[in-house]
């Protein structure tokens, strides 16, 4: 980590600006709090960080930030896209990601803490969920070949349903629900694991049952294509969603509609 970067960030942190940056993104124009100085040193900082993976739209790094284990999500310029479209999408998604995380956390839904946002380089500094595994890996390792129902997996599916219901009741649409975007964090005290939602890059705020229905439809497709023969498990998830959300009946009705759109669509050549 460069000395300069640390300095700037420490000063900001001392004044409580890191947190403020993220919070303010929720209300005012986000550019106001862009830390221009830190962005100068950012490439250096990322150069020393550990590149974890390159997702669909961002590079994900692991680093130490103010002594805390941190994930940095860098939305780099996509060369295949028209520059105008690229800038629009990248900026909007950075803003939305931070906004939705805050909204979820305020509602008591586990999501990583936002430490810092840089809107110039489109970087988000997030709490690293240490000691966690993706729900995807968990299902893959727990699923038995003869596909007899596993009570532990069923409990997990119910938990996912409850949390998604809560998120939708807050009018947060995740936009990219997959089992890779849900983490299980084992809590050291009671051994119970905490479900953490991540990757809100395609999220937005909407109260429409249509948007919530599509959100579930996206999950259903990703779930069933990633985990073959889990139809019954996903059914459990939906049941628990329906039971937990006050507004679920309109959403489930929309989900049925969207499914038909996909399946019964005329498919020519």
């Amino acid at each position, binding site marked *: 980590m460069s000395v300069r970067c640390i300095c700037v960030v420490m000063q900001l942190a001392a004044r409580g600006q890191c947190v403020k940056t993220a919070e303010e993104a929720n209300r005012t124009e986000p550019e106001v709090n862009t830390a221009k100085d830190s962005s100068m040193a950012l490439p250096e900082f990322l150069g020393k960080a550990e590149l974890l993976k390159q997702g669909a739209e961002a590079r994900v790094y692991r680093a130490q930030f103010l002594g805390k284990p941190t994930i940095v999500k860098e939305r780099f310029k996509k060369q295949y896209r028209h520059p105008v479209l690229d800038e629009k999408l990248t900026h909007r998604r950075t803003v939305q990601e931070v906004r939705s995380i805050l909204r979820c956390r305020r509602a008591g839904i586990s999501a990583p803490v936002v430490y810092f946002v840089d809107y110039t380089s489109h970087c988000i500094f997030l709490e690293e969920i240490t000691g966690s595994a993706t729900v995807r890996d968990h299902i893959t390792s727990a699923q038995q070949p003869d596909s007899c129902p596993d009570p532990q997996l069923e409990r997990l599916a119910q938990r996912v349903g409850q949390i998604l219901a809560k998120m939708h009741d807050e009018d947060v649409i995740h936009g990219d629900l997959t089992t890779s975007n849900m983490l299980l964090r084992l809590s050291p005290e009671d051994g119970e694991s905490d479900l953490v939602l991540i990757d809100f890059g395609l999220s937005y705020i909407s109260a429409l049952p249509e948007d919530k229905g599509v959100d579930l439809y996206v999950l259903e497709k*990703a779930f069933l294509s990633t985990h073959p023969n889990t139809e019954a498990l996903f059914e459990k998830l939906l049941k628990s969603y329906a039971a937990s959300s006050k507004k679920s009946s309109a959403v489930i009705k929309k989900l049925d509609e969207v499914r038909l759109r996909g399946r019964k669509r005329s498919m*020519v050549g």
Partner: protein
Amino acid sequence: MTVVIGFEGSANKIGIGIIRDGEVLSNPRRTYITPPGQGFLPSDTARHHRAIILTVLKEALEQAGLKPADIDCVAYTKGPGMGAPLVTVALVARTVAQLWGKPLLGVNHCIGHIEMGRLITKANNPTVLYVSGGNTQVIAYSERRYRIFGETIDIAVGNCLDRFARVIKISNDPSPGYNIEQMAKKGSQYVELPYTVKGMDVSFSGILSYIEEAANKMLSSGQCTAEDLCFSLQETVFSMLVEITERAMAHCGSQEVLIVGGVGCNLRLQEMMGVMCKERGAKLFATDERFCIDNGAMIAQAGWEMFRSGQVTELEDSWITQRYRTDEVEVTWRN
């Protein structure tokens, strides 16, 4: 040696191809072209296919230098597609199979595209982007199925392009998509359009409604040219396609992409996909119009794989269906 003849006619193309153990012996094709501003209707398309199918069949056999006795299996498109054209082609396939005393095989059209792409490009286990007038799907193979990870939740990308072409009366000869591609090369001004990606899924109906409403107004007020609109539409919808393909690759940990289907021969789409692949150290596989656009050889190739793994379709089961999803087929020829 196994020789399979394939009959394809699920939309406005009629094609018959012959494959012998991975070698394309012949692959003639005809296209039913409608006047600018008009799409192709099922009954007219079927009439076109009926009128020409025996000529195409004769060509396929002559170019391959084969007699009916040399053929081991007759494959035809079972679906998905337009009902009337599918019925027409299946009827001819059924007839020649009985005349020649050969087994029949009903093939899923989408699987035909995938297997043809794999044969031509030698891609091993790619993430497949299947884009055409009727389909938009991101597919990956696992556990004996081609699983659909992402797809359009409303209309297909090719349908969006075709219908846009009708709005501003772009010619359907040789295809609306080809003409949009050529016009887009002369466009320079980027007009902002809706951009709708939902995880690994996409939606095109909003873009189409928007551009249907706005196109003629923008053109008559001189705000932009038809070329600019073609350019902007391509940049927008192709960005969406590349994005969901990349998301599926990241999700599946895949390092190969194969583009198939009629829209897949668009060079701008291939170029954008190539840039994305380079950014993540992946490899792109694509084919040209001979094999991207619907053709008989692709049905023969999928049929060849199925036949070799022991499948045949009995006469009483040789029906067609307009709706036939890619993931309904058990892939018996891969492990």
